[in-house]
C-alpha cells in the first residue's frame, strides 16, 4: 500500500482558516441581516397614514342639542396592502367650559363603545361598566381615564373631526395611530 496521508495542517494554520471562515460568515451574515430586518420592520417604521378630517355637520346642530349626540365617522385606512373603510363612533357634547367637544366613543379601558344613557345622565361602557359624565370625565369603573377628546376644527361653517386611536389602559393619553 502506497497510501500517503498528509498530516493535518498545523494547528496555527487550521485555526487561522477557522477564524477567517468565521469572520467572513459573520460579515456576510450581517450584510444579509440588514435588508431582512428592514423588510420585517417595514410596518413598524412606516405606520399607516393618519386619518383625514371628517365633516360632522354644522356646529349649530350640535350646539342646540340638550344631550350628547352620537355620530359615526368613517374614514379610509390603509392596512398594509389593503385599504378599508373604518367606522367609529364619536360623541359630540359640551366640554367642562361649555364649548363643543368631540369625544372618541372608544372606552379607554378595553376598547368597547361607551353609550350615552340620558335617563342616568352619563356615558356607560356596556362591557365592564365604566361610567363617565356628560363631559367625558371618568366617574367610576375600571377605565383609567375619561373618554378621549378628538382634534376638531371649524372650517367652511362645518365642524370637522379627526379620528385618532389612543393607547388603552394607561392614565395619560397617548396617540397610537
Amino acid at each position, binding site marked *: 500500500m502506497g497510501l500517503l496521508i498528509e498530516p493535518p495542517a498545523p494547528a496555527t494554520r487550521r485555526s487561522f482558516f477557522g477564524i477567517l471562515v468565521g469572520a467572513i*460568515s459573520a460579515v456576510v451574515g450581517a450584510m444579509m441581516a440588514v435588508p*431582512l430586518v428592514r423588510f420585517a420592520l417595514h410596518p413598524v417604521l412606516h405606520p399607516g397614514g393618519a386619518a383625514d378630517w371628517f365633516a360632522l355637520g354644522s356646529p349649530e346642530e350640535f350646539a342646540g342639542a340638550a344631550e350628547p349626540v352620537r355620530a359615526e365617522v368613517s374614514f379610509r385606512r390603509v392596512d398594509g*396592502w389593503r385599504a378599508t373603510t373604518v367606522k367609529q363612533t364619536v360623541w359630540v357634547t359640551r366640554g367642562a367650559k361649555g364649548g363643543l367637544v368631540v369625544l372618541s366613543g372608544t372606552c379607554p379601558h378595553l376598547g368597547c363603545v361607551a353609550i350615552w344613557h340620558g335617563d342616568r345622565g352619563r356615558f356607560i361602557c356596556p362591557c365592564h*361598566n365604566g361610567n363617565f359624565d356628560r363631559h367625558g370625565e371618568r366617574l367610576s369603573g375600571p377605565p383609567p381615564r375619561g373618554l378621549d377628546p378628538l382634534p376638531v376644527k371649524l372650517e367652511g361653517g362645518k365642524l370637522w373631526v379627526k379620528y385618532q386611536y389612543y393607547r388603552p389602559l394607561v392614565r395619560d393619553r397617548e396617540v397610537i395611530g
Partner: protein
Amino acid sequence: MSAEPGGPPAGRGARLAHWLDLRLGWRQVMATALDEPIPGGSRWAYVFGSGLLFIFVNQIVTGVFLTLYYVPSADHAHTTVSFIQKQVTMGSFLRSLHAYGSSVMVLLLMLHLAQTYVYGAYKGRRELLWLMGCFLLLLVLGMAFTGYLLPWDQKAYFATAVGTNIASEVPLAGGFLKLLLRGGSEMGTLTLSRFFTLHVFLLPAAIFAAVAAHLFLFRKAGAAGPPRPADELRRLRVETFFPSQVFKDFVFGIGLILILGALAWRRPVSLGPVANPADATYLPRPEWYYLPVFQFIKYFQGAAAVLGIVVIPAVVVLALFALPFLDRSPERRPLRRPVAIGSLLLVFAALVLLGVQSEVQDRRDPAVRAKLVAQEEAERVYAAAPFMPEENLGPGSGAAASQPSALSPAAAKGALLFESEGCSTCHGPQGHGGGGLFALASLGRRFSAEQLTALVRAPRPDMQQGGMQPVQLQGEDMNALVAFLLAAQRDTASP
C-alpha cells in the same frame, strides 16, 4: 472523547468549550465533519455542491421573509407581491434575491451534475448517492415550477397554464393528474393554494430529507477524487476537507451571494399586470431553463405530441437515474469514455440549440415579436406605476340600515335599542358579527322570547367571560329588543 486527560483546561473560554464538549461531544462531530479525507486534495471543481447549499439557504431565508406579506389566494396574491415589490422596504431586493436565486440554483445543479458526470464520480458503489442527486434535481425543478406561479401576474399564470396542460398528455392518468395539480379543470385560486403548499411545505421538506440522505451517502462513499485509475488514486496525497476545501467552498459561496446581491440590487426582477384569464392573446414564455423543453415540444404535433411531451423526456430522465447501472465500467478518465462524454456534449449542444432556436423563432415572426414586445412594455408600465392598495369596505358598512324596514314596529324599536345599548359594539350591526365580533346566530330557532329575555337579563357564565353585561331594560323596551333579536336572527324559522 475530550482531548484533555488531565482535568479541566485553564482559561474561561477553554473551560466552557470543555464543559460543552463533555455534554455535546461537539469536538468529535467537528472532527468528523471537517477531517473528511479528499484524495488528491482540494479543488475548485468540487465547489458546486456546497454552492447549492449556500443558495438553498438563501432561498429559505428570503422565502420565509417573503411570506410575511404574501397571501396565496387568487384575489390577493398579485396585490401582495406588488406591495412587497413597490412598498415594503427592501422588498424588491429580497424578492429579486429569491427569484434570481432560483435561476442560480438551476444553473449550479447543471454544473454539479456535469462535474460529477465528467469526473465519473457516480462510479464505485455510488448508485444511491447518484439516485438521490437525480431526485434532488427533480425537486429543485419542481420548486422552480411551483414558485413561478405565485406572483400571479400574466406570465406566471399563462406559463403555468401551459405547464399544467403538459400533465394531461400523460397516458391514462393525464386527465386526473391535471385535475390534481390544478385543483379543478381550470386554473384558479385552488391552483395557487396547491402550488403554494407544494412550494413552501411539501417540496422543501422533501429537499431537506433528500439533502440529508445525499450528504450521508456522500460521506459513506467518500470523496471520489480526481478522475484517475484506482491504483493511481491510492498513491495521491490526501488532504482533509478543512481547511483548504472549506475555504474554496466558502469563497465560491460568498462570491455567489455577492454576485446575486449585486444583480438583485442593480436589476431587480419585474412584476407584470395581474393575471387575466380572459386574455386569450397572451403569449407565455417560460424561464430560460425550461426554454429548450418548450421548443422541443413544438416539433411534435397531433398524435405525436405525447412523444415530445411525455415519452422522450421520461426516457431521458430514466436514463439519467439509471446511469450508474448502465455504465458499469470502472474507467473514470473522460478521454477514455467517448460514449459518455460524447452524449453529454450532444445533450448540452441540443439544449443550447433548442433554446437559441426558440429565441430565433420568436424574433423572426413579426407578429409574435410585436406581441412579445407589447407584453414587455405592459410589464414595464405596470412595474413603474405606484402601488394601489386593494379597496375593501369596512365590516358592517351599509348593513345597518338595510333590514329594519322589514321588521315589525316592536322589532324596529328593538333594532334602535340594539344600537343605543351598545349591543352592536360586540355583536356587530344586526348581530351579524364579523371582524372578530360575536355573531348571534339563528337565535329565533334556538330560543323562545321568554328564554331569550331571561338569558339577556342574566347571561350565562361563559357569556359573562366574553364580556356580556346583564341587559337592564324593562317592560316594553325589553320586549322590543327580544322581538328584534328573534326577528333579525331567525334564520329560517319564523317567531
